[in-house]
């Protein structure tokens, strides 16, 4: 799922890098306020936990038919350290992987950070946070792991497609099936690992705080609606970027600048919308 350098087109990597910077800065600020408390042991904790995820990725889980898979870790970190700290740890892991193992490029770092450290961690945190109490707890943890990998993989695949990397239809289906399998595995591994950790010390797991059922249903409906719209656009228009930005010619030297600017504007708009929605929800909850 790590996108190497050379795969994304200029407008795509440029806008994703530009979008990743404020996201990481936000997570860093939240983590920083936690770190600056006096007598805080979280400074080494986050780093050592990053090393733990690196090491845990080496442990093979038997899947069947002689194959094996391994943990990715975004959901596990989010459930144990909280989303902001997990984003920072995942970002640190991605930077080191790009430098040490050339797993993913440096120019495409923004894309990889957004896919795995931001979207992957958030998608892995929300199901647990919303549903992780009562009878459905194990199911919620499974869903966390599943969503974390499924969201990262879907984003990575769509970024490659938007960049014009040729992916034949058969290969697309094969990779979707592979992604689904690895998402199911991540869910199962996360659930089993969280159960083992909880057996040793329940304080290592963050408590989940369910929202009102109505909010849950509404947000799920919203997500489903977004997904359906995206699929509808994607299947009716083979080149999504062309469809989203009408009136654009082929990628000329001025064309990509305008596209990047449009992409940036869309990102800013999305950030503003999310910020607004977040403020509103926070105010409602405190009221």
């Amino acid at each position, binding site marked *: 799922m790590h996108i190497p350098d050379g795969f994304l087109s200029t407008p795509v990597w440029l806008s994703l890098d530009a979008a990743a910077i404020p996201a990481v800065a936000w997570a860093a600020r939240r983590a920083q306020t936690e770190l600056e408390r006096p007598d805080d042991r979280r*400074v080494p904790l986050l780093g*050592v936990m*990053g090393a733990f995820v690196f090491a845990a990725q080496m*442990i*093979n889980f038997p899947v069947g038919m002689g194959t094996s898979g391994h943990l990715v870790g975004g959901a596990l970190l989010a459930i144990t350290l909280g989303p902001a700290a997990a984003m920072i740890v995942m970002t640190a892991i991605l930077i*080191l992987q790009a430098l040490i193992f050339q797993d993913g490029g440096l120019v495409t770092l923004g894309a990889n950070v957004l896919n795995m450290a931001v979207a992957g961690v958030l998608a892995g945190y929300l199901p647990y946070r919303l549903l992780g109490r009562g009878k459905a707890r194990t199911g919620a943890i499974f869903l966390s792991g599943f969503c974390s990998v499924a969201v990262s993989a879907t984003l990575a695949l769509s970024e490659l497609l938007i960049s014009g990397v040729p992916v034949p239809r058969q290969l697309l289906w094969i990779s979707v099936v592979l992604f689904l399998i690895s998402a199911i595995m991540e869910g199962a591994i996360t659930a089993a690992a969280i159960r083992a*950790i909880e057996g040793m010390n329940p304080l*290592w797991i963050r408590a989940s705080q369910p929202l009102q059922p109505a909010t849950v249903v509404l947000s799920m409906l919203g997500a489903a609606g977004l997904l359906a719209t995206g699929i509808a656009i994607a299947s009716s228009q083979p080149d999504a970027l062309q469809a989203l930005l009408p009136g654009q010619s082929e990628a000329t030297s001025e064309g990509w600048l305008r596209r990047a600017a449009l992409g940036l504007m869309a990102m800013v708009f999305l950030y503003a919308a999310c910020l607004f929605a977040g403020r509103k929800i926070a105010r409602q909850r405190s009221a």
Partner: protein
Amino acid sequence: MRPAVRETWIADRWSRGSGPLHSLDARVKLAVLIVYLLAIASSTVWNQTAFAGYAAILAAGMAASRLPLSALGARLLFLLPFSGIFALIAWLSGDTPRALALVEKSLLSGLGVVVMVATTPLEEIVRALEFFRVPRSLVLVMQFLYRYLFVIADQAHRMRMAAACRQGNRAGRRPRFQAAAGIVGVLFARSWQRADHVYRAMAARGFQGTFPAMNPARFRVADVVFLCSSVVAALTVRLML
């Protein structure tokens, strides 16, 4: 141990060697690497002469690094499968320039990163990131992560060996899955405790939240010359060819 983990030890040992590239300031090397990568990433698919130019810049850097070329080249094997598959698909669908560009871009970029990591200790790279205003919490996490990466990876390896010795390969899939989950759980617990010990030991030694540098970096004439010449070279290739 995963071969890639051992591989880093080699790059780590290389990075502590000496050579013309080794002695340069990490901040300068990082800036040059970023300019070089951005130039490659923003080049159009059809511009084959530009890729030849980048290859020349890379060759100069590899020569200046005084590292074993065959070992540097061995890193290509890690990069090739992914870009190779997509390049093959592009080539089969008749898009030869894109296929060429995919392979060239990913290899030129990947090798550039390898030359950087093999001539600069990772602590210095992370310190350079701090200079470029990367948030301090992220820098700290990276410093701790790299410091304990191999310690915990070795621990994971030992636990895996122990589990394999206990159960053999006769156990069914379910118990082996449970055992692997148990390893992850215990590894988590041990890492958490290790972080606690590390915190106490560092607090006792007066850790203030930053790692002091062994030898503070300073810009020298060689750094400025290297910075100017390589940035000019990369920009010339990007804009002129």
